């Protein structure tokens, strides 16, 4: 597709912010357009990075589950982790990736809460592994403001 989506959104934002907003006499509407421009800028960046970000997160969570599963004594949770670790992203549509991502996140919450109830060394190591994954996820989801 040409022009690319990020170009279409980027130039639309440029027109909104540089031409349309200044022509408005209503300062509230001007500030609304300013905010809409920022949000559209976010959307353009998400269009570019969205699939890769979700595929990366899903892979990180599957690797974590694969590594933790053998050390989980609760049979039902261990099985869930093993099953989730073996799944794959069949589609690269954002909606499909989100569904998988949310299912994996729910299991991650269960795993972390389970580990918090244990006081053994193996659990301590796994808790740190979980936080490593969460930190990476938080960093990858961070989005910078325009001009920063």
């Amino acid at each position, binding site marked *: 597709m040409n022009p690319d989506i990020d170009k279409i959104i980027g130039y639309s934002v440029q027109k909104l912010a540089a031409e349309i907003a200044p022509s408005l006499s209503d300062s509230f509407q001007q500030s609304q357009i300013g905010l*809409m421009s920022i949000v559209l800028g976010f959307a353009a960046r998400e269009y570019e990075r969205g699939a890769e970000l979700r595929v990366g997160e899903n892979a990180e969570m599957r690797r974590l589950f694969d590594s933790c599963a053998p050390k989980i004594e609760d049979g039902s949770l261990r099985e869930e982790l093993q099953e989730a670790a073996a799944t794959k992203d069949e589609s690269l549509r954002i909606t499909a990736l989100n569904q998988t991502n949310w299912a994996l996140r729910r299991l991650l919450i269960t795993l972390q809460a389970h580990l918090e109830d244990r006081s053994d060394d193996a659990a301590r190591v796994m808790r740190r592994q979980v936080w490593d994954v969460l930190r990476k996820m938080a960093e990858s989801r961070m989005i910078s403001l325009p001009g920063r």
Partner: protein
Amino acid sequence: MSDVLAQRLATYLAGKWARGPVEVRNLVRISGGASRETYRFRARPGGPFCDERALILRRDPPASLIETERATEYRAIEAFHRLGLPVPEPVALELSPEPLERPFFIMEEVENCTAGAILSPDPYGEFREKIGRQFFENLGRIARADPAALKLLDFDGATEPRACASHEVARWEKVVETDEVEPQPIVRAAIRWLKSHLPPPAQKISIVHGDYRTGNFLFDAEGDMRAILDWEMAHLGDPLEDLAWAIDPLWANADASRPGGMIPRVEAIAIWEEASGLKADPAALGWWEIFASFKGAAIWISAAREYADGRNIDPINAFSGWYPLAFHNQILAGRLGEMA
């Protein structure tokens, strides 16, 4: 639309002031957050010697960012204005939807002032230290005030010092439960951590402003703080909650050493302690700082839900679901991850 609103407002004020017809002019909507519609206007009461008044109308939107008791903001403004803090003079509170379709209140406009931009790298320029000292002193004065003397003991919140922390965690956990669209593992971990590491009881029950930060107060051209705004989340609780919220890194453009982009953290806390007569125990404050980032995340989750459901499509709600939520997730992951 604003002509109709102006006319209805004039009719309302004429009835309220009972001094004949009221002229309302220059009614314009201004930015004031997504949880209330905010308008500036001028009103001239009837009679030959009545001066025109510069006023602000705060009306409930069709859906609120955070559901708040609408009388709360007005009563808090009334109480702290009376106490002598820089708070606008309240004019009228109307809970009936009849006059303007939704409940609203009116207060004095504090003119020729500006609010610091929330995400600006340097919101106060040459005045940052002067404003910073006033900012933390006024917060200390809010903490020092006696809710009973202010007649605000019926506000929402904990009435027992040992219940403050758990009450607030429960309150915001409920918001997450209700409004979460996608699973939030970092926020969930924060809730569990907060519940299992509760801080010592509050030193006293105070009125907590609830959203005391850059962007929610006005200052003038001399760098004097003139109006503390947005009291809609005011409640009873631990005064450290407000201090922790005020020094949250989101308002400091991530520079936690200089809260709100104003004065160094150590100085800010010392000023607050002096003005409040309270101590900011580092461990207790540390807990409330984690809580502040969690509460922020809960607010952003709620805002994103409002937008996603089409109940309030103010772009600030879309923005909140992206930048501030990602920011607070990152802060929480960093702080909690270090302690794991």
